[in-house]
């Protein structure tokens, strides 16, 4: 078992963190472009019994 899985991460979390670190050490001219790939806006609403429940925003 790999150390990151032991820490409770899954592969996607692990590789995203790695990607973030790589983006941070890029040269400045490349960094501006890479920053665009570093943002997310997706929001989630869990639904229970056919109604949205707002337990987490």
């Amino acid at each position, binding site marked *: 078992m*790999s150390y990151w899985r032991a820490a409770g991460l899954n592969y*996607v979390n692990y590789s*995203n963190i790695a*990607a973030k670190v790589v983006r941070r050490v890029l040269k400045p001219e490349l960094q501006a472009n890479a920053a665009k*790939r570093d943002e*997310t*806006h997706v929001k989630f*609403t*869990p639904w229970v019994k*056919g109604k949205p429940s707002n337990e987490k925003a």
Partner: protein
Amino acid sequence: MMMISKPTTMVVCLKGAATGQQQNRNMATLKQISMRLKSVTNIQKITQSMKMVSAAKYARAERELRQARPYGEGVRAFFEKSGATEAVETGDDNKLIVAITSDRGLCGAVHTNVAKTIRNELSNESVESPQSKVFCVGDKSRALLQRLYAQNIAVVANEVGRKPPTFLDASKVANELVQLNFNSGKIVFNRFKTVVSYQTEEVPLLSAKTMLAAPKLQLYDSIDQGVMESYQEFTVAALLYYTMKESACSEQSSRMTAMDNASKNAAEMIGKLTLTFNRTRQAVITRELIEIISGAAALE
């Protein structure tokens, strides 16, 4: 008797109203026509600029899609070569369907097609005891599905479609998906074919167990439980990324066509309205001339 006489009076009334309106429309509504003309021209301007915007967005989405395709195709090739297919359903009541749409409308039938595919799937099940869960990516799929299949909706993701999807978006969605603990699942999305065409397709989501049980797995070297687990987590995110890109691209191209059609229709309407406007104007002038001339003739 009553039954027969009633409709005839109705018809007479309607006829009277219609002719009155007809006269009204021909004569005194010059201003109304010009107002209508102005609003249609404004609408045309809006649809034209929306077309320009979506054309620019489409160009970008297509460029990005070309880079994202290998992610999806790689995973699909693995599924195909290893012969990994969905587990044969034996009382399996934890299916998951992911609907890839966006928050934005005015783009033809892209979202409706996704919703229709899912609706067909769900119509085989009873409404009271939902068997499949639906994960809606984008407000549009939620709006289209919640009326009949609100019970099936598990999670809704919104704020999708304003900006092009990133891998981080996809991995956030993947994390939410994994928490639902599904046994088998699939993603329904629109695959982009050309600027004017797209096709609604589905890709399976497989669990690590089914992937390890694939019949032709020997083709691949050095696979153990851990590798497969990681790869399964990655396939979910990669497939989501790929399908989100495909559907973003189809959406923009479809919006481009829809807005182009809307502009064309508006142009047609403007033509017709200008014609009526000019006719009415001339009729008004003629009427006024007749009134003046006959008035003058009466004075002599």
